[in-house]
């Protein structure tokens, strides 16, 4: 268990810090000035020191300098009411991992203590690759919901409420949506919620949508940003991308466009799930005339997934399509293409599906040779045999 030393001449600060550090599951010891602090460091090793600046006998910078002179490299977080740049710059030169200004919020202390103890190095060089870094794709919500914030799929920022209502009627019920009509309300909402996609109208009166989108991005760094715009003869997609949007959704909405939007931001994410060398296609839940798009997207997802399985050095690839629709010839065509891709990367390919699918595959010359199994366990048993 990590042990932390808090050095501060204020008993109340030491008490508060000690309680919070103990709540994190760490041991804590206290010292009331730099002299006591150095003495404690001489007696045993600590994993982290939380150090005040202004103290009697020996102040924080003095203690820090002595520590480093003595070869003690224990990470130090300054915890102080001192915010003069010359003072902080001075202790940074001697070597601190991070800095917390008093009075502090418990979550800041927790976050920075954990960051340093987990070897992330505290403040670190966070700006090194800022310009070159591409926008992150929208990850799974479970990976990014911040503590205490409710996750919502879509935020619509448009001054006309009818736009929210219209989009609501065109989205499936399981996709959650919040609508706001002003920039202020959008900012407030983005402080309180975590969104997967934020739609921003480009014609809100008195609002520069590019600026608003940039502001919202600060609060929603993982969300995708889609502009709501009218169709024009211009290259609207190019224009909104130049302003920092990821995409555009045209108004008035068409069901086709909205379905594409859903496909891009909500369905592809779990259309093909992977567990080791088994890929499982999700069920198709849409209108029959959307099935082509379903197979197009699943084909795109497969191309990425197969490389990951190959990279993990599996020799067999099992594709479970029990939930995929068997109407028409789209599924056999997809399986044929998948088998070819598996062959190209040097993997053996097996299909898991329903008895109906087996009949269909047997009815085509090109697919009747595919290795077929009625369950994943049987497919895996066969590959181990």
């Amino acid at each position, binding site marked *: 268990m990590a042990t932390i030393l808090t050095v501060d001449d204020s008993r109340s600060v030491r008490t508060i810090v000690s309680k919070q550090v103990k709540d994190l599951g760490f041991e804590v010891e206290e010292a009331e000035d730099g002299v006591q602090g150095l003495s404690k460091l001489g007696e045993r090793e600590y994993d982290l020191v939380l150090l005040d600046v202004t103290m009697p006998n020996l102040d924080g910078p003095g203690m820090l300098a002595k520590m480093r002179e003595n070869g003690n490299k224990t990470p130090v977080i300054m915890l102080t*009411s001192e915010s003069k740049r010359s003072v*902080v710059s001075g202790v940074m030169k001697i070597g601190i991992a991070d800095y917390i200004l008093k009075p502090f919020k418990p979550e800041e202390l927790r976050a920075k203590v954990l960051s340093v103890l987990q070897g992330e190095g505290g403040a670190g060089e*966070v700006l090194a690759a800022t310009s070159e870094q591409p926008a992150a794709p929208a990850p799974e919500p479970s990976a990014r919901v911040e503590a205490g914030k409710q996750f919502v799929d879509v935020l619509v920022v448009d001054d006309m409420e009818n736009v929210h209502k219209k989009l609501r009627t065109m989205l499936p019920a399981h996709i959650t949506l919040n609508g706001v009509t002003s920039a202020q309300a959008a900012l407030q909402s983005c402080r309180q919620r975590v969104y997967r996609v934020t739609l921003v109208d*480009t014609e809100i009166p008195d609002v520069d949508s590019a*600026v608003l989108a940039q502001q919202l991005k600060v609060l929603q760094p993982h969300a995708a940003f889609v502009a709501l715009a009218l169709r024009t003869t211009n290259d609207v997609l190019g*224009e909104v991308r130049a302003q920092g949007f990821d995409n555009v959704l045209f108004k008035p909405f068409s069901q086709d466009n909205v379905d594409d939007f859903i496909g891009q931001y909500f369905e592809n994410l779990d259309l093909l799930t992977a567990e080791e060398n088994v890929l499982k296609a999700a069920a198709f839940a849409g209108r029959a005339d959307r099935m082509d798009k379903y197979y197009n997207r699943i084909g795109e997802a497969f191309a990425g997934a197969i490389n990951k399985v190959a990279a993990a050095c599996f020799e067999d690839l099992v594709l479970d399509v029990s939930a995929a629709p068997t109407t028409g010839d789209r599924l056999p065509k997809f399986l044929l293409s998948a088998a070819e891709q598996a062959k190209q990367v040097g993997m053996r390919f097996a299909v898991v599906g329903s008895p109906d699918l087996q009949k269909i595959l047997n009815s085509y010359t090109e697919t009747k040779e595919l290795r077929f199994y009625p369950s994943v366990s049987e497919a895996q048993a066969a590959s181990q045999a």
Partner: protein
Amino acid sequence: MSSERFSEQLEQIVLKRISEDSLVLPTLPSVVTKALEVLKDPEVAFKQVGTIIERDPVLAARLLRMATSAAFAGGTKKVTLSEALTRLGAKSVRTLLVEATAQKVFVSRDPKIAESMKKVWQHSVAVATLSRDVLALSGNADSEAAYLAGLLHDVGKPVVAAILLEFERQMTEVYNRPFIDSAEWVAVIARTHRVVGVALAEKWQMPEQVTRCIRDSAEYDNADRASLVNIVCFSNSLAKKTGIFAGSIDPDEVDALVMIGRSIIGANDEIIKTLTRGLKERVANLYD
């Protein structure tokens, strides 16, 4: 007389002129002054503002360009100036008027300082953009003051540079005596630009919080964490850390200001990355 002593004297002259109100500061063009006056009326008629701005075709063209940019949407059809102003809204028009005027202050015909002032202007735009975005962390959408405060935080620099240029001409051409070196130039500007910037902001009747930022944003105000001063101070350090600055900086001090700002503003690494991602390109593209 040593160069250091000479620069101290120059500094005293600049400060004395400020205190005596005898320093000649750039004025707002009459078109801008009148338009800003009319815009104070919350029930403003944009047709009236348009009539005033039309007298400055360059300014009118700039506002039209902004209003018809895709950022304000509807980018395809032609609009009249009053339609453009209505689309932009009073707050944005006010900011754009001040921005257009301030940019002229940073333009110099003297090649010696022109390039440097262009960089200071780009830095100012970066700080303005960051200030507006950092303000969003507090959920506050009224970002025009933050933008202006960031934009004008260094506005005293080109003014002091122009004064020094004039001093240099007098010394070298009239009295045939040497002038201070470039390092001393930078030092005099660093020591005097804030007081000159404050005088300029007051003359332009900028909001009090904008003036306060020009005066105080070299350090954080830990008594008022949510202050605009702290937002501009943090944004200034982030712009420098991102490499958008003129002249030389002390990297240790910049790191210290970023580290303090992370705690004061409550910005984690992820937020900082989002704030600064593509900033150089955004600033460069704004005024190409």
